């Protein structure tokens, strides 16, 4: 007699898996020669202004709006759209600065009504997962405890699909979702400006540090502005992950965390 799920480890069933990790993980091994080509990255934010020269190109996208009549309280409208604030454009440009050939998809969840925005965020994540996105950049969060279970379910689903969910942590010292979960790449800003400077924090929930203070970032109208926020640190990590995935597409989220930790400036 075997317990449930034990069949997966039967000798005839268990597949041989190429563990893509060498004994010494270096930056050269991790991302040298990669541009992030072939990796789908969803920028779940305020939209992306594709005409901004720092963005380069946008492969596609969708707008999510609250809809009380929809099954889960939100509706997705696929197609091109503008950036309502400038923030999504900033994130897109940061990702492309690190991984120039990553395929960017804009999933606009910000800018509609506030009411029900948790369900709108969640539907944006579901759309990204259903459309094969390998990296989900989320420079946004909610502190509302009502959404704890819903976001936990979606981040678990992402983990099982080997999609990397990268989240900016809120500045307030209280839990915010979805950055709070263990499977998520939780990011805060360090004071450096080099986009490849990466730090690992051995005392989570915040696990990774990236540039996010006094940065010149792309904004609306082809302009740039100088800005500060953990929301600008997250896309740096998304870019690095896209670059690594471009070279090692089979890496799982837990392997990716190991790689990022190994090549971090404070551990390498």
């Amino acid at each position, binding site marked *: 007699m075997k317990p449930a799920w034990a069949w997966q480890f039967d000798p005839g069933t268990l597949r041989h898996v190429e563990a893509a990790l060498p004994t010494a993980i270096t930056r050269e091994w991790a991302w040298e020669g990669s541009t992030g080509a072939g990796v789908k990255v969803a920028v779940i*934010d*305020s939209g992306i202004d594709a005409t901004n020269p720092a963005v380069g190109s946008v492969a596609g996208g969708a707008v999510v709006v609250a809809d*009380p*009549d929809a099954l889960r309280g939100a509706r997705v409208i696929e197609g091109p759209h503008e950036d*309502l*604030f*400038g*923030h999504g454009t900033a994130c897109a440009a940061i990702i492309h600065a690190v991984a120039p050939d990553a395929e960017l998809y804009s999933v606009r969840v*910000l*800018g*509609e*009504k*506030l*009411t029900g*925005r948790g369900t709108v965020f969640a539907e944006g994540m579901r759309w990204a997962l259903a459309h094969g996105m390998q990296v989900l950049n989320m*420079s*946004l*969060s*909610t*502190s*509302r*405890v*009502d959404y704890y279970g819903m976001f936990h379910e979606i981040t678990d689903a992402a983990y099982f699909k080997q999609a990397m969910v990268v989240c*900016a942590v*809120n*500045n*307030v*010292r*209280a*839990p*915010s979702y979805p950055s709070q979960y263990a499977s998520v790449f939780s990011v805060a*800003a360090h*004071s450096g400006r080099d986009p490849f400077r990466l730090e690992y924090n051995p005392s989570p929930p915040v696990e990774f540090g990236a540039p*996010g*203070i*006094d940065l010149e970032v792309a*904004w*609306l*109208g082809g*302009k*740039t*502005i*100088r*800005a*500060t*926020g*953990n*929301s600008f640190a997250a896309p740096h990590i998304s870019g690095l992950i896209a670059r690594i995935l471009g070279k090692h597409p089979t890496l799982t989220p837990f392997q990716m965390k190991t790689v990022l930790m190994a090549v971090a400036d404070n551990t390498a």
Partner: protein
Amino acid sequence: MGDDPLADLAQLASDLGPVLRPRGDEEFLQAIVETARLVFDAAACSIALLDDFEEVLEFRVAAGTGAEATVGLKIPADRGIAGWAVVAGQPIAIDDVRQDPRFASDVAESTGYVPRSIMAMPLESERRTFGVIEVLDRRQSGGHGADDMELLGLFARQATLAVETSRIFSNLGQALFEAAALAAPGLDVRAALAKRAATAPKAQTELAELALLFHDLGRLGADERLVAVRIVDDFLTYARKHQR
């Protein structure tokens, strides 16, 4: 006290809520923005709160340049740097806001002060988002943007607690009234409700009248109540669908 103890109790409970309410809403928030303005050596600091529909941000308190013109201003909640902080649930600091064409410059100009830098932090509890605190043109930053945000986060936390506590007390009168009505089945509830409807502030009149209707409905047969529930339910569905 009059002849109708329940009605008197209802009136008393309703009045007590606002009276017992901590002086959080305006005075405490005002103290927070004044302190924050001094700590950051900023040109101005303000707090805007969301309306019940979460569509409009109204500036409730402000300190510093343009403070008088700022208080009472209303802007759509999905606009500008403050709007982004509220919808994204994330703090943000921008140091050359005039470069941002979507920054609500008409708002800044109507207050007579157009800032160069702005730092915005959402006021969020684990239950809801209340609004945003903003600091304009801070001079004590020395380039340590992250430290500024940590500090502003503490002010935001204070403001959030103040607003949340204040709202609980404001609703206390109504809650006590409802509890009193439920706890005294032997008394003439209808009279109390009718009196309440006649004397309630305008915003509460409809709810008191609705309570009266429900009281009358309760005396009808089961079938009538069922039809009434269906009509109200259908109306709610319709109203939600066509809301704004």
